[in-house]
């Protein structure tokens, strides 16, 4: 397999005088690229989304040895320029200069995991062929040394034609050398020929001719751009306009017809090239030595001990979330109360004050109250990712999760959602497969979160006269609701797997990185970043919707006490309007108001019903409220809260989407309103149907 002469593919020269040097960090996932980025930029980073996808764009600034300002961009982790996901499509497009929002980098820093060198060089050699000035960083040298690997850096540098810098980013080793290398004037190194057989190379040229005229190519002159475009297997084909897609597919099919299996031939050729490259450069011991990672895995992945450690660790995590968050959440509530009182005392009574106190302050409080749980959960997730333990968790539970069509990586987000779905959904970011991630996001709100508990407690105590029935029954009913939610989640996961994003097979190939000592600084930074993103993105939506809902419950104003005020407001009228719809479920218009109000947040149901029945302090003591509810009657005298209605209402709460915060976070994580609206639709639909089933079925059976 000989390579022909490669055509030069150097892009148009960029006028460096008008802007700063743009340095891009490129590498596999888990190679420590982000740690390096954090070190180089300090906390001076900007995180945004690439337009239209949930791919994060991370930019920052760093200063060279001479004080020159360098713009740094951390490209998403990728295994190859043959894109299989929007993340990889972004990497390809930025490096080929195809993106309007990001100019082609001036320098590329290729970050590799020295202890996984062969595989890392796959992407590295692809990028080097693009002809950009480059520096090769061999990170995690300590792990390679622990495996007793010996790497001849000088020889590697000579063969590749780029500076090679050994590094251990977490210990800060090699950073200075990297900065020095980045400061030097780097030249575009001599192009190396891609390891492609001559015949295929020629065929590629005719594909290029085809595409040049259509404008699908930005980088005219090189064969690499058309090559990577026709090898794009991202189901979304991100970065390729629909208009060009058919021609690109045609180009691919033409090549396939001529050389069946050509893509696989190319992959094999590249690995052969890498093996030749590393001959004499990389010396490995014959037998793989048992490293610290192996010793730890012997315990942590042991058939029995592995489970013990997993359950123990997860128990610790969730116990921390529940107990450690209590205190701060209480402070936030108190703080909110204090601020509200202060505003009330300082301002004259009126609509503006009402808006401020009950709309804005309550809304902001409703957002901030999530912070303790988010911070704690992401501290632990950051720790798990940093050390490498997260892969082990996914490895252990994957078999169980795959039975319902989920991924092992869905486990932690799903479990977290039993506390609160908001951080749970944010945690799905670690799921690489787009389809798996979406399905996980869609179903985790079915895990009965802690906000449902006050509702269950209220309805169970209304339904069950405490005197005659043992508490065991109450516990059983509660557990039944939890089980219902869990099975609902699994059921929908199974259903969505069959119906949504059909044709995309979720790949469960997981990298098992070596264990690393976690960097506390990195973890804290990660934690704070997630919190910051939540406040900015989800927070604004939650606040906005809270104010709208408050307005619906306050206006139009009318005379009378709070109860009639609520009844005559927009929300109250809406309650009347939907009564015919919810009557088959056994609910009246007052419950209707409760449901509308709790669309914001489930626990609001209790206080709303308190207002409707004009009961004081219903949040603190539900006994008076319970008595009122038991006494409630329909116009014809029949009791409203029969046991059947209580069960029907609880079942409704199990399934319905009643959380603005969740909607906001889903919108952020899926980059649009399509999926949150779909989620509201399917969950509320399921809630209605299940409630209907329970009530009508129960009535038929004579309850």
């Amino acid at each position, binding site marked *: 397999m000989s390579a022909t002469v490669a055509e030069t593919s150097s892009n148009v020269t960029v006028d460096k005088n008008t802007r700063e040097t743009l340095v891009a960090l490129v590498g596999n996932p888990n190679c420590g690229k982000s740690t390096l980025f954090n070190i180089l930029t300090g906390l001076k980073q900007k995180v945004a989304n690439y337009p239209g996808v949930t791919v994060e764009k991370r930019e920052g600034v760093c200063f060279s040895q001479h004080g020159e300002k360098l713009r740094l961009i951390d490209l998403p982790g990728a*295994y*190859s320029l*043959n894109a*299989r996901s929007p993340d990889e499509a972004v990497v390809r497009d930025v490096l080929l200069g195809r993106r309007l929002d990001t100019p082609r980098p001036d320098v590329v820093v290729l970050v590799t995991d020295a*202890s*996984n*060198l*062969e*595989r890392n060089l*796959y992407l590295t050699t692809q990028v080097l062929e693009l002809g950009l000035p480059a520096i090769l960083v061999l990170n995690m040298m300590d792990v390679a040394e622990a*495996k007793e*690997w010996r790497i001849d850096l000088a020889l590697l540098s000579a063969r590749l034609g780029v500076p090679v810098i050994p590094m251990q980013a977490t210990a800060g080793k090699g950073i200075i050398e990297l900065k020095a290398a980045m400061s030097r004037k780097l030249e575009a190194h001599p192009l190396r020929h891609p390891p492609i057989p001559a015949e295929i190379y020629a065929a590629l040229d005719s594909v290029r001719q085809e595409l040049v005229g259509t404008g699908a190519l930005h980088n005219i002159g090189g064969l690499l751009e058309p090559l990577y475009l026709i090898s794009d*297997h991202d*189901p979304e084909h991100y970065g390729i306009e629909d208009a060009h897609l058919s021609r690109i597919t045609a180009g691919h099919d033409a090549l396939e017809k001529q050389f*069946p*299996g050509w*893509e*696989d031939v190319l*992959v*094999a050729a590249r*690995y052969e090239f890498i093996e030749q490259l590393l001959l004499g450069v990389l010396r*490995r011991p014959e037998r*793989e030595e048992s490293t610290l990672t192996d010793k730890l*895995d012997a315990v942590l*992945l*042991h*058939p*029995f001990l*592995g*489970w013990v450690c997993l359950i123990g660790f997860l128990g610790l995590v969730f116990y921390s979330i529940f107990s450690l968050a209590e205190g701060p959440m209480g402070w936030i509530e108190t703080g909110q109360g204090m601020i509200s009182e202060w505003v009330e005392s300082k301002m004259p009574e009126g609509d503006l004050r009402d808006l401020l106190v009950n709309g804005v302050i309550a809304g902001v409080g409703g957002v901030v109250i999530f912070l303790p749980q988010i911070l704690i959960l992401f501290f632990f997730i950051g720790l798990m990712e940093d050390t490498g333990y997260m*892969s082990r968790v996914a*490895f*252990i*539970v*994957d*078999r*169980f999760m*795959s039975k319902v069509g989920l991924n*092992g990586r869905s486990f932690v987000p799903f479990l977290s959602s039993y506390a609160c779905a908001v951080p749970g959904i944010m945690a799905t970011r670690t799921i690489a497969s787009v389809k798996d991630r979406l399905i996980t996001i869609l179903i985790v709100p079915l895990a009965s979160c802690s906000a449902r508990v006050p509702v269950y407690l209220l309805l169970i105590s209304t339904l069950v006269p405490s005197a005659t029935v043992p508490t065991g029954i109450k516990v059983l009913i509660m557990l039944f609701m939890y089980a219902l939610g869990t099975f609902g989640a699994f059921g929908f996961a199974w259903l969505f797997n069959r119906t949504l994003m059909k044709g*995309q*097979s979720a*790949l*469960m*190939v*997981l*990298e*098992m*990185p070596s264990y690393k000592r976690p960097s506390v600084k990195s973890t804290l930074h990660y934690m704070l970043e997630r919190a910051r993103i939540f406040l900015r993105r989800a927070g604004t939506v939650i606040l906005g919707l809270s104010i709208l809902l408050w307005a619906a419950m306050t206006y139009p104003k009318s005379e009378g006490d709070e109860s009639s005020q609520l009844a005559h407001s927009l929300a109250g009228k809406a309650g009347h309007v939907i009564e015919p719809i919810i009557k088959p479920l056994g609910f009246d218009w007052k419950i209707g108001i409760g449901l509308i109000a709790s669309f914001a947040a489930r626990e609001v149901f209790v206080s709303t019903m308190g207002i409707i029945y004009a009961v004081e302090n219903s949040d603190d003591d539900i006994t008076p409220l319970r008595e009122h509810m038991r006494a409630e009657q329909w116009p014809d005298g029949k009791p409203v809260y029969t046991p059947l209605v209580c069960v029907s209402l609880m079942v409704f709460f199990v399934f319905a989407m009643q959380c603005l915060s969740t909607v906001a976070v889903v919108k952020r994580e899926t980059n649009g309103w399509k999926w949150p609206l779909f989620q509201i639709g399917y969950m509320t639909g399921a809630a209605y149907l299940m409630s209907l089933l329970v009530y009508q079925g129960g009535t038929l059976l004579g309850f």
Partner: protein
Amino acid sequence: MRHNLNRIGVYSFVIICEQPFAFMPVITSLSDLAIGMTAVIQDMPTGHDAYLTRLRELGLVPGTKVRLVRRAPLGDPIEISVRGSRLAMRCSEAKHIKILPE
């Protein structure tokens, strides 16, 4: 008569087949490799299924040595060592990779 010929045919078949099995290692699936054993990849299914080319790009091409490190506590997925890296994959995926144990 035909019955006896059939019997002879069956016996011959058994004798011919038994010999090679005693001396030749058999091509099997990666999912069936024993723990700790090494093998060489013989064949990967062709096609552009979302994961197949990705597996190749991760280093699993014909001619590559792989070693089965462990199976998960529930039996699935499996962890393999290839080109100095560790990968985990489901048996349903590994089943399609044909290997020759050493």
